[in-house]
């Protein structure tokens, strides 16, 4: 599957896995609950680690682990749930997260400009056809009224 990262189309190397079948190698992301429960074990994993957040997750406890995490996914249950925008802002601004911050799930290309402003730098399209639309929408505005992450 292809995604957009830092404005480029690239191949995705990550897999979201659940507790029951966590592979021992490869780049994997897990839910916040899974991370909190099995952190010690996950840190032994060969391959990169990521956490998938959903709206309602609190990121303050994750803050101490950010150095061990290379990917944070923001999984939209539906496009109208704006909590993930604030989580992105908190991760970048308050907790200084530098790794990949990726939008996934049920958002639309029309939202990627705002997402990029709050620090999201990678986008998994809902449908493969959306790649072009996402790239186009990243340039929706050339000026802003207020400071954010970007």
């Amino acid at each position, binding site marked *: 599957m292809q995604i957009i990262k830092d404005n480029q189309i690239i191949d995705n190397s990550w897999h979201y896995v659940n507790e029951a079948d966590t592979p021992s190698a490869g780049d994997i992301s897990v839910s916040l609950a899974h991370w909190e429960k099995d952190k010690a074990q996950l840190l032994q994993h060969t391959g990169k680690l990521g956490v998938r957040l959903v709206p309602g997750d609190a990121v303050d406890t994750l803050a101490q682990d950010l150095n061990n995490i290379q990917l944070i996914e923001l999984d939209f249950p539906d496009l109208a749930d704006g909590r993930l925008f604030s989580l992105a802002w908190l991760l970048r601004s308050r907790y200084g997260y530098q790794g990949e911050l990726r939008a996934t799930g049920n958002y639309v290309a029309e939202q990627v400009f705002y997402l990029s402003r709050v620090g999201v730098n990678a986008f998994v399209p809902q449908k493969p056809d959306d790649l072009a639309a996402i790239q186009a929408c990243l340039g929706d505005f050339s000026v802003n*009224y207020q400071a954010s992450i970007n």
Partner: protein
Amino acid sequence: MYQYNEIDQKIVDERVAQFRKQTQRFLSGELSADEFRPLRLRNGLYIQTHAPMLRVAGPYGLLNSKQVRMLAHIARKYDKGYCHFTTRQNIQYNWPKLEEVPDILEELASVQMHAIQTSGACMRNTTSDHLAGVCVDEIEDPRPYCEIIRQWTTLHPEFDYLPRKFKIAVSGSQRDRAATQFHDIGIHIVKNETGDIGFRILVGGGLGRTPVIGQVIKPYLEQQHLLSYLEAILRIYNLFGRRDNKYKARIKILVRETGLEKFNDMVEAEWLRIKDGMELSAERVAAVKTHFTPPPYEANTDQDTRFAEQLANDKAFATWHKYNTAPHKVAGYQAVYLSLKAPDTPPGDMTDQQLDAVADLADRYSFGEIRVTHRQNLVFSDVKQGDLFALWQQLDSLKLAMPNIGTATDMICCPGLDFCSLANAGSIGVAKEINDALDDMDYLHDIGELKINMSGCMNGCAHQSVGHIGILGVDKKGVEWYQITLGGSSENEAAIGERLGPAVAKDQVTNTITTILDVYVKQRLEDEAFLDMVNRVGIAPFKDRVYANN
């Protein structure tokens, strides 16, 4: 008034291009109706009973004559020749075609207007006092702060998908004419002991299904922290506001369920972390203030003697002057209300011809500026007293001089069943009936100050719960009924109206209102206003009479 710079213009132009693209993606099937919905709402576009409805922003109620001519042009070219002014100082069109909306927005952008964030679960148009900058009781002109807030809220990337809509109102006067206690955030400009200007911040007010009076969360906020404090409230609301039930999603419910004290702690903690990083500089405030300097008032306009003669010689003029003007801080000038409550037109509606004519009159008599009030009328804020007579005559020929501002027929009324897909009951027709019943001007003036607000459903767009008399359309097994409340107020002594009793049938509404007025006329003390009497005697005497025959 604020004039766009290159950045402002670019933002509205790019927004039009963005919406054009979104509309194309929807029409070609790339976006589903559910996906397009929040996008179009954020551009003011609803799908209504008959056609889409487009809501255009009137930034804190200020328009210039060029913009009003554009509103007329749009009414002619894309609609049925009229538009509607709303209680939030916005403008609505009831008959645009979806495919043409990007073109309408492009035309609006050419005169520094837009429909950004006029609907949807986002930060809406900031509203304010329609007498800002000219009234006699002002602490400081709120408009520069409104503009600063307008810019900050516009296309805010973090807060565009809130749990629910979010409304901010600012008042700079002793007397609250902006219903700030019924907004998600109400801002009062205040002076501290040392004479510095700051803000009192209220939170959690709102109308709709669960009317709540806003509570003070910050008695005094220093000027430079305005935006950081708003950002802290918005972040807490965005993260913790309820999203499981849209009727419990407004910030008032979050404040209530969390408790003001705890909510305050959360906001304060967030604010302390961000405040130093986003101070509003004195230079920025000063730069915005240069857009709101007083117009070139003429000296000695109060020396004009014709005005006193005209008042003495023409009773109709004197009556109009008594009801439809307000004092001005500059001697010899007055603010003039244009009543959009003529008997034969739906409250708040204007035709393209009226709009064009009003634009011309504004150029001639009021420095080209027009304001929208939250009671759905217009204001010319700076008219020389010597011009009042000529202006009155022309307004009269345009049917905009009904001397009823602040009286029973200056009703606020939502579109109701005639246009709104959410309505339970009609409102425009009932308003007309009440209007017809109160056509005796002497009686109307004898009743005096009275605010009647009528909404076609629980959403309460016409703020019935804060009407001195509130009328709410309800549906009972497919039949239109109306619940009456008494004693509401959205001004300083804010109050939510108390229900009079069981709902009344449609054909009994007018009767009920006239009965209530009759009780008032018979039982009032000398010079006692309707609201004061309700506060003194309660609803019992009214109730007894209205339900006497049941």
